[in-house]
């Protein structure tokens, strides 16, 4: 479970986040939506450890945590998939899945930094099969995969390593219909495994299809939240434009 | 001061400066064109540039130049050069910078005879007299002298030395040249082949350049020895070529089997001559080049004497004659015992 309470983030004298709240529960997909400039990206960066916040608190499983780097976030079990910049094209699928967390060989060779490539290949193939990601071979360089396959690998990597939270920033923005469906299948698997999934998206039908709950941001705060089953696309648009507010105490601007 | 006023003020200043510069320019042109201008009193700064820094040869030129400056009064030598002989454009810029920095005279060795001709000319146009050492330009203005080795004559003699050393019978020989396209290289290569023509028993079986790089000289010599197992003699036409060639012969275990005629007299070349790895060295007189170049430049600037070209001469050094007084002066030139005719 991932929570944010009253998070403030300033860039110079611009306040991108003005006391934002956010909650993502275990075993749920929480969609985070909002118009451009509402503060979604900034909030995601704070939650992912890419940017420190100025005020407020971020809690993982109820414990307050201050992330100094993405590495800290990862240690806390929070994995993030960015819209781009996610994979190293020249490395194989297996190498990408284990990037930064390679398996060393046992014994003195491992201490010298040599890798157990076979174990990584096997582990990668098993993990991808478990998530239902179909890739021809785990030794294939990422550059040879389609856009959807690459994104599946990126999402799979996050899901494999996350113990608590997976944050997906526009994971399907550049993908076609079929490819998007494949990525969303992987997202659904992550939920089944009991993780908190945060999905940032502009695609309202997709949000309503995959998310359990929706939180809406406007002007650096959370202004509305819904159960996905209870709302329509029109409600979401109204909330994004400020016409519909469910969290008056949050939205009250200082 | 209002911006408007300031800009008008600036324009006036610029105009004045331009007028002044133009008149100054005309004056300089007059001074440079007329060779009979009065002698320059006071301190002199003479720029001396080798083809490239980094070889023994050019350091001896430098010693000669500084010796001549030391014998005169109030003369400073500014020594600067490009890093590689192949950096022709760099040398063009260097000569221009000398002119810009206002030296009184330039003494230099052209890395390329055609490419440096305009640089020499523009120095003369700016009123800075020029003397060439080692390698001149083409065309070479009549007022610019050349103090150099007669490379062609030296190389012809190298072929004769090789023929004498090899003796009767048919022999295969090779030429390690250094910088194809440079005038000095062309003269030595042509002089050597010209000299070979007089010896029907010598056949030139290989000719490769070292680009004045010892490692490359060694590589091409190794390959030449491989290609021509019967090779009897090598003429290596400059210092790095000689050093690389003897390394290659040594590592092939052919020292003594292949007769080497070298050029120049770096310490390791002289040592190799003593050790019997080299049969003879054609030794130029770089000290004299630097000396004569700077000396006549000083006389020209101080007394208006026209500068006249001179052959700085070569000495043929063998293990037998290297102890003689005359050869020692060439091998170990110093300002105390300069190898120059005074």
């Amino acid at each position, binding site marked *: 479970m991932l929570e944010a309470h009253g998070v403030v983030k300033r860039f110079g004298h611009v306040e991108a986040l003005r006391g934002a709240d956010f909650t993502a529960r275990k075993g749920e997909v929480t969609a985070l939506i909002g118009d451009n400039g509402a503060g979604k990206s900034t909030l995601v960066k704070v939650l992912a450890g890419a940017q420190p916040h100025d005020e407020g608190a971020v809690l993982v499983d109820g414990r307050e945590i201050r992330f100094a780097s993405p590495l800290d976030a990862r240690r806390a079990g929070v994995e993030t998939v960015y819209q781009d910049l996610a994979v190293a*094209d020249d490395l194989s699928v297996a190498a990408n899945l284990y990037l*930064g967390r390679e398996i060393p060989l046992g014994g003195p060779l491992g201490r010298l930094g040599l890798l157990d490539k076979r174990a990584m290949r096997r582990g990668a193939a098993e993990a991808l099969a478990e998530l239902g990601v179909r890739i021809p071979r785990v030794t294939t360089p990422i550059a040879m995969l389609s856009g959807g396959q690459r994104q599946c690998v990126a999402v799979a990597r996050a899901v494999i390593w996350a113990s608590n939270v997976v944050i997906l920033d526009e994971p399907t923005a550049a993908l076609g219909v079929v490819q998007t469906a494949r990525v969303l299948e992987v997202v659904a698997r992550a939920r089944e495994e009991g993780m908190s999934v945060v999905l940032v998206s502009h695609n309202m039908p997709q949000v309503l299809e995959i998310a359990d709950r929706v939180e809406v941001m406007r002007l650096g705060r959370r202004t509305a939240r819904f159960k996905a089953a209870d709302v329509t696309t029109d409600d979401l648009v109204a909330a994004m434009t400020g016409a519909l507010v469910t969290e008056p105490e949050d939205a009250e601007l200082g | 001061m209002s911006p408007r006023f300031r800009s008008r003020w600036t324009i006036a200043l610029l105009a004045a400066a331009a007028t002044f510069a133009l008149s100054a320019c005309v004056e300089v042109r007059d001074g440079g064109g007329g060779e009979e201008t009065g002698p320059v009193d006071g301190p002199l700064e003479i720029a001396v540039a080798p083809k490239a*820094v980094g070889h*023994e040869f050019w350091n001896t030129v430098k010693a000669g130049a500084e010796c001549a400056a030391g014998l005169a009064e109030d003369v400073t030598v500014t020594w600067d050069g490009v890093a590689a002989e192949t950096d022709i454009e760099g040398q063009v810029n260097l000569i221009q910078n000398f002119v810009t920095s206002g030296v009184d005279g330039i003494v230099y060795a052209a890395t390329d005879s055609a490419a440096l001709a305009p640089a020499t000319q523009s120095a003369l146009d700016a009123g800075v007299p020029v003397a060439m050492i080692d390698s001149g330009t083409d065309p070479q203005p009549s007022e610019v002298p050349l103090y150099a080795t007669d490379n062609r004559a030296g190389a012809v003699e190298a072929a004769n030395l090789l023929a004498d050393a090899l003796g009767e019978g048919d022999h295969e020989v090779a030429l390690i040249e250094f910088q194809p396209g440079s005038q000095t290289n062309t003269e030595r290569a042509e002089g050597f082949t010209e000299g070979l023509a007089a010896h029907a028993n010598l056949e030139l079986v290989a000719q490769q350049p070292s680009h004045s790089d010892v490692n490359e000289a060694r590589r091409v010599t190794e390959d030449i020895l*491989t290609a021509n197992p019967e090779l009897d003699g090598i003429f290596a036409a400059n210092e790095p070529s000689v050093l690389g060639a003897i390394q290659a012969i040594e590592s092939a275990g052919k020292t003594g089997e292949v007769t080497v005629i070298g050029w120049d007299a770096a310490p*390791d070349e002289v040592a190799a001559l003593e050790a019997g790895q080299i049969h003879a060295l054609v030794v130029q007189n770089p000290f004299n080049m630097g000396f004569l170049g700077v000396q006549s430049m000083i006389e020209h600037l101080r007394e208006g004497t026209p500068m006249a070209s001179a052959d700085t001469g070569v000495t043929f050094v063998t293990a037998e004659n290297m102890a003689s007084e005359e050869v020692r002066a060439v091998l170990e030139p110093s300002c105390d015992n300069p190898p120059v005719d005074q």
Partner: protein
Amino acid sequence: MTALERDAGVQGRLGAWVSERVSVAVSEFTAAAALVVLFVALSLASPNFLTADNLFNIGSQTAVIAIIAVAQTMVIITKGIDLSVGSTAALAGVMAAIVVRDLGVSVWTAALVAIAVGAACGLVNGLLVSVVRLPPFIATLGTMSAGRGLVFIVTGAVGVYSLPESFQLLGNGQIGGVPFAIVVTALVALAVGYLLSQSRFGQHVYAMGSNLEAARRAGIAVRRKLTAVYVLAGALVGLGGVIAASRVNSGQPNYGIGLELDAIAAAVIGGASLFGGQGRIAGTLIGAFLIALVRNGSVLLGISIHYQQVIVGLIIWAAVAFDQFRRRRLEARG
């Protein structure tokens, strides 16, 4: 998943397997094929080519450029380029010669000095690239110029001569009849090849060259590792420099001008991509030997230096054109 998609997946799988195998190896394979063809042609054309002496000669002649090309390959894989290798090699070579001449140390100590000098130059490059964030081209261009200047300063622009015979051991010595330089080159190539392909560090080198930001986000200490690549490359260049000096038993201040181009050519012919992320030591060795064979063969056959340069140029064109072609095909698939 629809039936149509499944079919496409199966077909794609086979296609991907074939094109993956072919394309990854294509540059290396082409270069290797060219090497074999040239080798056979020279064996037929010159009776002196296929002799132990000549092959050892080629090996020794190629040793220095091969070691430096290996260093260059590591840097190129990180999407960098090292223009300073010639100056660094010269500086390392003359420093080794100077300590031997002035301090009378052994050739081994001199080699360590040269490696340290090279590593120091590499450290400067690495810090400029990873901390000051200069583009590698600019950072190493500066080092190339400053390094050459330093060479002239420490030598007074004169070759370092009068070295003891023992200094020649690295460049001219033998181990069991095999030239020492060849043995050193083989060990270096094996070690670096293993490091790149089998170690965590190597994996991260490819990752940084492929996508620096992705590597950073994967928790790789990119600054430290990028610097380490340049330091290691510099150390190898220093080793190459001392072998070159040892071969001619002197420290040459003019050594290595243009060496960076040979090293880049060898790496690129062997399949390294200037766009980063790709390159293998085996390929680089093939590239270095291909260039060496062209030069050796030209002298054996009495071909003028000018044609040698044209031939090397043609090989570079062909190799890079292949690389581009391969990249385009990969991108078309993606």
